[in-house]
């Protein structure tokens, strides 16, 4: 069972469609990052933004760099870093929750001037 798409078929969907989709995802992530009150939702928004960047890299890798596919290698590194970031971020969140007993972002203001 193969998932490969035959050469010459990639031209039906333009590159800009993928770029626009990634832009929608990234802007949604930015809005959620700014406006979320729940700390877990902030982490989810960061994951959305990282996925948008991954989609850009994959689209460029397929359309422009089809032989060397350096974009796919970079996507794998980004996935690695995202997994590490999620683990550390959720550990920080648990530690915060034990100390402040809330997940409200507006009350994590110990370092604010």
């Amino acid at each position: 069972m193969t998932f490969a798409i035959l050469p010459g078929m990639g031209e039906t969907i333009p590159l800009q469609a993928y770029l626009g989709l990634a832009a929608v995802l990234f802007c949604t992530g930015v809005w959620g990052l700014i406006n979320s009150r729940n700390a877990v939702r902030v982490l989810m928004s960061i994951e959305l933004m990282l996925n948008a960047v991954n989609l850009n890299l994959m689209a460029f890798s397929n359309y422009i760099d089809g032989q060397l596919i350096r974009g796919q290698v970079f996507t794998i590194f980004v996935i690695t870093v995202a997994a590490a970031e999620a683990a550390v971020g959720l550990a920080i969140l648990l530690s915060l929750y034990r100390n402040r007993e809330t997940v409200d972002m507006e009350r994590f203001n110990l370092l604010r001037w």
Partner: protein
Amino acid sequence: MTIASTTQLICFLVLAVTLVVGSLGVVLLPNIVYSAFLLGGVFLSMAGLYLLLNASFVAAAQILVYVGAVNVLILFAIMLVNKKETLAEIPGLVVRKVLSGLVCVGLFVLILRVAFTTNWALPGPPPVGEEATIRIGEHLFSDYLLPFELASVLLLMAMIGAIVLARRDVFSSDVITGEPVDQGLLEKVRTPLLIEKPALEKTP
């Protein structure tokens, strides 16, 4: 337009709609458990888009790492910190939402303008298709060897850091008798760092 390309277009449209609706749901839904499950749907449709882009290995890695690890980790975090709390009203919250929405729309228009006005080097060389996994392996063990090794060090650091950060502080010995106590059963009584705002404002 051949049938195969029509199928590809339909797949792309369905995945794109799922992606956009899912990401909006992640950000906007009030119940965070629904948000977490929708995030899993977003990751799955992203893997489908990777399959459309001739990258079966990265699609498998996306499902394994994101759906299998990150999403489950987020669900565990939600279960651990799931306390019903009524969020205090913040003055100017609506203004902040509208303003940041405008900024995000502006960013979106900017990215779209860049995407449509840039003269991309299209069409590029034909995609390698199913050989992509072999090429990725060659890259990882030749010219990207140092980032590959650094990624493993980063994962080790993240693992140790997560353990240290999320660990509970426990007594190692009984305070009165001095005997060692069962680890993991006792938890140190801690004073929460909650600082009440009115108490601070009264002092001056």
